[in-house]
């Protein structure tokens, strides 16, 4: 028993203490969180724009008069559909590699390129969450707003969007948690995220168990923290639900 403890202690010291290897994990976690945050902001911005185009096009399909503007709008709607299909139809790691090795081959900051790629990927999922939220509001709400004299944008702003936000916030938080875990493939493009940090330690110490379990536990802790936060948010939203 004492021998086993001694070996665990030796393993721990080898993987984390010696040569200050724990610093890899700290830097890695920092990069993972940075990647996630930047990707989240990019994703939400793209998601809002794409959802606005898609849902506006769908909602006005019945009432819009045929015109040049309508055709231009239709073109952008088609563009959004292509974006959604391509992004959701290909693996995120392939997208990140294409961004790093093809589109931004000359870029020096791999972290920002990866963050952009993750953001563009996440944007597609965010867009569909928001669009689903908008379309799930009963059309009668929309008609009530329009019948009072609100124009399309006013109806969205005063009536539809406030109800949508409440509906989609939990789903958006879940997308954020999924995104956090997805960034673990950033190591493919030489970004030293948390996963990569564990892998670097493993390659230095030739010992896989400790670094990989440590990485897994850190992800788990972060995800559990955010899940707890989502749960709290959901309870608060329900409390104000009349």
């Amino acid at each position: 028993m004492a021998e086993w403890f001694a070996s665990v202690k030796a393993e721990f010291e080898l993987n984390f203490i010696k040569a200050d290897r724990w610093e890899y994990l700290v830097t890695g976690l920092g990069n993972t969180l940075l990647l996630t945050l930047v990707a989240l902001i990019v994703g939400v911005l793209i998601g809002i724009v794409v959802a606005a185009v898609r849902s506006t096009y769908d909602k006005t399909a019945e009432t819009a008069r045929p015109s040049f503007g309508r055709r231009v709008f239709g073109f952008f709607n088609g563009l959004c559909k292509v974006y959604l299909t391509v992004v959701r139809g290909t693996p995120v790691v392939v997208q990140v590699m294409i961004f790093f090795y093809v589109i931004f081959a000359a870029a020096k900051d791999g972290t920002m390129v990866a963050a952009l790629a993750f953001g563009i990927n996440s944007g597609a999922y965010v867009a569909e969450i928001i669009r689903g939220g908008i379309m799930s509001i009963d059309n009668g709400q929309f008609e009530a707003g329009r019948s009072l004299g609100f124009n399309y944008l006013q109806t969205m702003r005063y009536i539809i969007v406030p109800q949508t936000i409440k509906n989609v916030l939990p789903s958006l938080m879940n997308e954020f948690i999924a995104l956090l875990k997805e960034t673990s493939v950033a190591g493919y493009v030489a970004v030293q995220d948390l996963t990569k940090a564990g892998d670097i330690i493993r390659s230095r110490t030739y010992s896989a168990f400790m670094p990989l379990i440590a990485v897994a536990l850190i992800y788990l802790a972060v995800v559990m923290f955010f899940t707890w936060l989502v749960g709290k948010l959901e309870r608060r939203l329900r409390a104000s639900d009349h």
Partner: protein
Amino acid sequence: MITDAIITVEGLYKEFGHGKVHALNGVDAQVRKGEVLVVIGPSGSGKSTFLRCLNLLELPTKGKITFEGVDITDSRVNINIHRQKMGMVFQHFNLFPNMTVLKNLTLAPRKLKGMAQQAADEKAMALLARVGLADRADAYPNQLSGGQKQRIAIVRALAMDPEVMLFDEPTSALDPEMVGEVLEVMKALAREGMTMVVVTHEMGFAREVADRVMFMDEGKVMEENTPENLFGNPQTQRAQEFLSKLL
């Protein structure tokens, strides 16, 4: 030619699904200032579509609708301004569930007419008192009964001081014991001289309150008359059949 018409409808056609469904097949109609026009007919006859075309919630396929002398089917017309003067009440109330009753009533006057919060609140409270719901100002819609919701929906539309009120089967989604309270509010409104277009299955209401009754079937106006004549002595076979089934 009627000169005091507030709404004139000429040759109105509405198709759905690229011509698969013909909801309206050439409707001509007038609504005169201060009158109550009740539209009746079997389901699928196009009466709701007709009503929803009046404020362009449905865009007509063909035809012309003139409201207060303006052709609102002209694509250059800003329909939002005209809709402010056409209140609408829906079958399913469509109150804003995330707002209090008071906020439901004051949102449009404040945002569209620039009314101050206090003035809008006072006006809303006066309207609520009129329908006996002043004590529910701070309630949320899901805390109200169906009849209460519909009375709120009516005063929400009235808060914009409309020239015309459009009612789309306002009592069809209500439990029977709540139909009366909503009809009472509508009758009071009619007595005050509000111009109203009412799509309904309430023949008692039509008989009592309507100045004119329009019978629609297959997307056309089959017959139009005073309630006494239309209910007492229907001219078309369609109307005779429809009315005989109701008795």
